[in-house]
């Protein structure tokens, strides 16, 4: 039953959310399921060790360790594919939150109802948060189920911590997309700007160990706070998790303020 903007947003996104969650869950399961056969080979480790250092840095920043399922997941799932799912979902949902309704011309009708503008922003951020939690949970379920099926021993608490960090990455980028959408009223600007930031963050964090001057800007990379400290092996770090959460919160609040003070796009 659609009763409020956040339920309306869930109503609109549940199909794509279900699709992304199933894919993310299956992907997590597949990586774990294939681990025993790949791990036994040991050739992959040698192959990857011969990769150019730049590629190594980008996709195995936490140090290459294929000897453990966690190391394998770190490289395969958490360096690139996992965040990709989460980012695409968060950026597209948040970019569409206000800007999408303005572009489709439904915002006037919605705001003719007695609902403050800030509440529209906050409720849409809330529905995005639920979506990110669902995707992260789906990955956890996939990984846990596969680990159980192929008898791989994993610390599922640590996997959950790493997935929480992935979810927080999505949340922070969602906050940015929400703000860009609320400022401009244009969905593609919000989506493009956020994805550009994500890509830049990815490279800054990945290449920082190889390029001296990048090291100083690394703290500005959301990827650094997401995966730079190896949450899969070390658990969720309160500081880095807090930075991501703060970006999400500041982005949402700033979006609400910006949206309150702007003319709606006709």
């Amino acid at each position, binding site marked *: 039953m659609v009763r409020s903007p956040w339920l309306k947003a869930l109503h609109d996104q549940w199909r794509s959310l279900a699709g992304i969650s199933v894919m993310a869950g299956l992907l997590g399961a597949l990586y774990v399921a294939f681990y025993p056969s790949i791990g036994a080979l040991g050739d992959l480790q040698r192959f990857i060790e011969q990769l150019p250092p730049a590629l190594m840095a980008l996709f195995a920043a936490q140090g290459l360790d294929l000897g453990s399922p966690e190391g394998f997941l770190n490289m395969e799932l958490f360096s690139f594919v996992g965040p990709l799912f989460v980012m695409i979902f968060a950026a597209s949902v948040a970019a569409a939150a206000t800007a999408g309704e303005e572009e489709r011309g439904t915002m006037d009708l919605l705001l003719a109802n007695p*609902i403050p503008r800030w509440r529209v922003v906050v409720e849409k951020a809330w529905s995005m948060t639920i979506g990110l939690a669902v995707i992260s949970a789906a990955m956890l379920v996939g990984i846990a189920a596969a680990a159980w099926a192929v008898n791989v021993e994993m610390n599922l608490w640590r996997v959950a911590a790493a997935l929480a960090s992935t979810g927080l990455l999505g949340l922070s980028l969602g906050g940015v997309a929400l703000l860009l959408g609320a400022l401009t009223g244009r969905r593609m600007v919000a989506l493009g700007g956020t994805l550009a930031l994500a890509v830049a963050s990815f490279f800054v964090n990945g290449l920082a160990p190889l390029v001296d001057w990048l090291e100083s800007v690394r703290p500005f990379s959301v990827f650094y706070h997401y995966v730079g400290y190896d949450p899969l092996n070390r658990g969720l770090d309160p500081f880095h998790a807090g930075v991501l959460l703060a970006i999400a919160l500041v982005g949402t609040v700033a979006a609400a303020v910006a949206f309150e003070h702007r003319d*709606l796009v006709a």
Partner: protein
Amino acid sequence: MAGATGTIMTVTTAAPAISTEGLTRFYGPHPGIVDLDLSVAPGEVFGFLGPNGAGKTTTIRLLLDFIRPTRGRARVLDLDTRADSLAIRRRVGYLPGELRLYDTLSGRELLGYFGHLRGGVDWSWVNELAERLDCDLGREVKVLSHGNRQKLGLIQAFMSRPDLLVLDEPTAGLDPLVQQTFFSLVEEARERGATAFVSSHVLPEVERLCDRVAMIAEGRMLTTERVSDLKRRALRSLEFTFAQPVPEAAFAGLPGVQELRVDGSRLRCRVMGSVDGLLKAANRYEVLNVVSQEPSLEEIFVSLYARAREEREARENDGS
């Protein structure tokens, strides 16, 4: 005596349902509306007339706080449009000019959504509205025709029994039968004390609905008048057929008579205001037939609009 005075006092001091003072909105250098002064009395059906792009929608969007004025201010239901927008929107039913609904919802879901934002839905009233407008609430918006979407738009505007209806081009896409239903819905709303602010560029609709009209063009107010006064001032076309040819001189110089043309036993002219003088002059001859054409607001508007345009051009020429 004191009681009567008291009553009059109440009437004269009742705050307008809508009032604007010098309301101005520019889009960059382009004026949307300029120095608009409006006053709509409570319980009135007020027509807001003008060609497309005249600033009607801009005014409405300012009233609902979707956009903010460059200068000037506006009050709706005696509340400030900026500070008390939420309280205003609680009591206003709004139909946008370019209606866009949520494609993924059915009519019933859409009305349920908006109803909940307004603190609940009176489904028996909604169903009655749907029945009268012949609108199927079970179907998804994306499969509805333009006319059926417009009906949904009307239902959501009327469903909370608002104190003020703000309707931007309400009959666009409605077939004549549904238009009749719409007219009676506005009439019923007026009877229970609601005010209606109806923007339109369809003059017969405004003539039919409204007590007073404001006419705007190029963002500026041309006139605000009672519809009946406007029509009284308007030129009425008359055509007489007499039994015998009549002399033109017998009709020349009559008050209000213009464009007099006598062609044997046939007389045509246009009359502003009362036709009494003309009728008395005609009565001296045997009249076989009279055709009087109701003056339409369209003509009034076109002449006002042309005059405003000339004045503006004159101003601009003076300036340069």
